[in-house]
């Protein structure tokens, strides 16, 4: 078995320094933010083996799950990793949400923060959970040795039992804990990990946790968890950007049904009631004079973004620069220039955003419960709004009814804390979907300009890609923005293309727009990949080269070539038939994705099918990986084909939720997802977002095979051929 070193802790001195102190400390983290560490207890029942694992009296493994569940399957995949190393039965692993102790539970791939996002959960916790599992396995081995006199070298663990190979006897974990006390291995004990070939849990596709609860209505999301003594409140905000209440007449609202109180905030007016309908109706009945709207519109935004491309005073933050790109462009045989515009888009997660705040400790402290992607950031919003220290904020995450990045910067916590503090009683705030569409966070609009140069054969010699957009980090978490050298990776993700090129320059220019920016599944890769991959097809078409051959010739990584070959084979690429086929390739979050869109050969082509090949490294739960990619591809299709928030007169042009067009199941192509390379892979890469970005360019490239043109803005018209 492979030996590994002890886990590298975020805070190596933690145990020595903090054990038994029972106080709270704040420690600067590598990411430029802060890691808050509160107390020294995991809060796990039973015998604690590790921060992540305890064992209860009946042999049940308790797992402190550091990730929240929003449909991505983390509460199935993470226990599988643990079960693999322990030799545990998945059904006998119980999950508890990990407490907000970032020093223990923070994601190593996320600056040690407790955030479930960025397709980083499984890959980030993979090593930690394997080691935690190995520790538990060793604890069971040690107990079995003491009980039976067996040599540890003769033991293996599977099906929730320790097995003694020479005698064939087995001790169930329940029997072990009934007969003796488990002792966690010492911190310097080597932790042997299972070799890849011995995996029996990882790589299988057991039923997902909670599926039955999700189809019987028993699942309780954050919005369903309002405490019996809490009021429910709705904040009425102006329909226009930046609107503030100047004058409020609330008589009619106060008289309605179960309305209890009205709270004026700087950016809205909250109506708190004993039932949801009264809160909604009360908010509707408020008579508010708002500060006037500005006159900004999509034209304003576009003018600001486009002007930045010719502003010589700010050439942007450089992500990569190789060779003399201007020289290479000048000497290129052919030059290509394309500008691609991506609109503001919204998440429209189905569960309205919600948070409950409850003052404790004579109002000094506050408990926050919310459908959230980040306990750490809920703490930040809670502390600021309650005007208290972060360690006085308790956070409790609830399962999310969709998240898509929106619940990372879960700003509804701010509303809940403000209203609960003012009223001096617990309050759950829920945010209507219409208000969220008009005033909530959006994926920032962007403009890409790519200049490419080729030689006589059509090979790439120069690539100059500039993108202009606002920055989520700069606006929402400035300390992180500064710590990352003033480059917002969530605005530049997707710009690093996979192609060999002599000279290139990738730059991002930030321009602030008066719209609230937020993270959205796929972030900037959702449009950068479209800009890049349509440019590739323009080049291939101009040189009469096959788009697949061109990509193969420019990609060195065998994983990239493998997904290209796989999707080509599956989709019948190059077949002489009545179909158009368009290709897009991407490497994102460590995973490779190649997508072929198949369309009818008509003057106005219609989409028939999407073929996706993905190398995600080790697939913990292959069926769920395929499901995630399929779901993300539908979001990608929805954003390619219709999603766009329009702005005019200082506001989003949205009068009802139905004004925001999203894909529905009467207009979906068939989607096939194939996994490549996972059989031999040792480590998982990102999954959650990777289905989104290649869909738009694959469709655009398929249609262009007939039309010869590529749309210069998202969304574009995509008709689906129904069968």
């Amino acid at each position, binding site marked *: 078995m492979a030996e590994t070193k002890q886990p590298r802790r975020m805070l190596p001195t933690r145990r020595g320094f903090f054990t038994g102190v029972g106080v709270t400390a704040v420690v600067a983290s590598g990411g430029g933010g802060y890691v808050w560490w509160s107390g020294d207890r995991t809060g796990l029942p039973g015998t604690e083996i590790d921060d992540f694992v305890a064992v209860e009296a009946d042999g049940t493994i308790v797992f402190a799950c550091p990730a929240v569940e*929003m*449909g*991505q*399957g983390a509460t199935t995949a993470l226990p599988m990793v643990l079960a693999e190393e322990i030799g545990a039965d998945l059904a006998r692993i119980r999950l508890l949400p990990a407490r907000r102790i970032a020093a223990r539970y923070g994601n190593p791939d996320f600056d040690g923060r407790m955030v479930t996002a960025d397709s980083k959960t499984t890959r980030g916790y993979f090593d930690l959970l394997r080691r935690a599992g190995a520790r538990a396995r060793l604890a069971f081995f040690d107990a079995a040795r003491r009980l039976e006199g067996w040599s540890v070298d003769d033991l293996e663990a599977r099906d929730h039992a320790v097995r003694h190979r020479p005698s064939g006897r087995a001790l169930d974990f329940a029997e072990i804990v009934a007969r003796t006390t488990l002792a966690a291995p010492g911190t310097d004990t080597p932790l042997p990990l299972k070799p890849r070939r011995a995996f029996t849990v990882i790589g299988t596709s057991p*039923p997902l946790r*909670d*599926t*039955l*609860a*999700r*189809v*019987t*209505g*028993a*699942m*309780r*999301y954050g919005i*369903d968890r309002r405490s019996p003594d809490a009021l*429910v409140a709705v904040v009425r905000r102006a329909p226009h950007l930046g609107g503030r209440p100047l004058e409020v007449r609330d008589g009619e609202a106060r008289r*309605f*049904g*179960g309305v209890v109180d009205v709270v004026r905030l700087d950016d809205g007016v909250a109506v708190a009631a004993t*039932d*949801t*309908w*009264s809160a909604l109706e009360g908010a509707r009945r408020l008579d508010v004079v708002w500060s006037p709207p500005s006159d900004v519109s999509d034209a304003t935004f576009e003018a600001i973004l486009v002007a930045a491309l010719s502003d010589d005073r700010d050439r942007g933050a450089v992500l990569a620069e190789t060779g003399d790109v201007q020289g290479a462009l000048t000497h290129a045989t052919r030059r290509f220039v394309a500008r691609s515009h991506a609109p503001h888009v919204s*998440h*429209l*997660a*189905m*569960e*309205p955003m919600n948070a409950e705040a409850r003052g404790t400790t004579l109002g000094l402290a506050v408990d926050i419960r919310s459908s959230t992607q980040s306990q750490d950031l809920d703490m930040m919003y809670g502390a600021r709004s309650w005007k208290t220290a972060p360690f006085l904020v308790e956070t409790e995450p609830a*399962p*999310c*009814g*969709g*998240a*898509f990045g929106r619940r990372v910067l879960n700003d509804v916590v701010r509303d809940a804390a403000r209203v609960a503090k003012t009223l001096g009683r617990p309050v759950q705030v*829920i945010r*209507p*979907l*219409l208000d969220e569409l008009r005033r909530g966070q959006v994926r920032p609009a962007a403009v890409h300009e790519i200049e490419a140069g080729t030689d006589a054969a059509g090979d790439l010699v120069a690539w100059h890609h500039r993108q202009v957009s606002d920055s989520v980090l700069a606006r929402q978490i400035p300390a992180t923005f500064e710590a990352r050298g003033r480059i917002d990776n969530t605005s530049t993700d997707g710009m690093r293309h996979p192609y060999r090129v002599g000279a290139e320059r990738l730059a991002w220019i930030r321009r602030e727009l008066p719209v609230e920016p937020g993270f959205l599944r796929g972030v900037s890769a959702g449009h950068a990949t479209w800009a890049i991959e349509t440019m590739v097809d323009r080049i291939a078409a101009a040189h009469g080269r096959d788009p697949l051959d061109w990509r193969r010739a420019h990609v060195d990584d065998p994983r990239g070539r493998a997904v290209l070959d796989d999707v080509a084979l599956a989709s019948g690429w190059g077949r002489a038939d009545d179909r158009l086929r368009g290709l897009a390739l991407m490497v994102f979050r460590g995973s490779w994705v190649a997508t072929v869109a198949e369309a009818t050969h008509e003057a106005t082509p219609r989409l028939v099918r999407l073929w996706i090949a993905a190398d995600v490294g080790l697939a913990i739960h292959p069926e769920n990986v395929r*499901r*995630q990619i*399929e*779901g993300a591809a*539908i*979001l990608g299709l929805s954003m390619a084909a219709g999603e766009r928030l329009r702005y005019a007169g200082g506001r989003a042009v949205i009068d*009802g*939720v*139905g004004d925001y067009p999203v*894909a*529905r*199941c*009467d*207009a979906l192509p*068939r*989607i096939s997802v194939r996994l490549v390379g996972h059989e031999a892979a040792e480590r998982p890469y990102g999954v959650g977002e990777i289905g989104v970005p290649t869909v738009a360019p694959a469709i655009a490239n398929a249609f262009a095979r007939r039309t010869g043109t590529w749309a210069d803005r998202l969304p574009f018209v995509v008709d689906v051929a*129904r*069968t």
Partner: protein
Amino acid sequence: MVSIELSVNGETRTVTVPDPAMPLLFVLRDLLGLTGTRIGCTEAVCGACTVLVDGAAVRSCQTAVGDLGGAAVTTIEGLSKRGDHPLQRAFVEADVPQCGYCQSGQIMRAAGFLMERPDPTRREVEDAMAEILCRCGTGPRIVEAVLRAAELAHG
């Protein structure tokens, strides 16, 4: 405040509401604790709040509780005792849900639809289920599961 009697999942329940115009959705969730019926857009766009009224799928956010008369309301909690309605079995078999938030509405819409059309074509299923929004992208699996449930119901 007004007292209203209604039939939910086979039981007669009495609720006190601020106004008979109170939508059934909020009566179910806030007054009866039946949170399996989900709150979404509250404007008849998303369908997350779909329930059956006398066997027909309706949007409970648009159904005034005072207009129900004696109609029988069935929510996801009342669809089956053990989660073994053919639709629920088919949804579990196909591992349809991701976040699961829309699934009550999907299943109740499908239940109403299959009562009208026990032998639907794929296209009819797609059209019916397009009324219920899913942002996770479970649409293709929903269509498969509804077709499978139609088979199971005959089985």
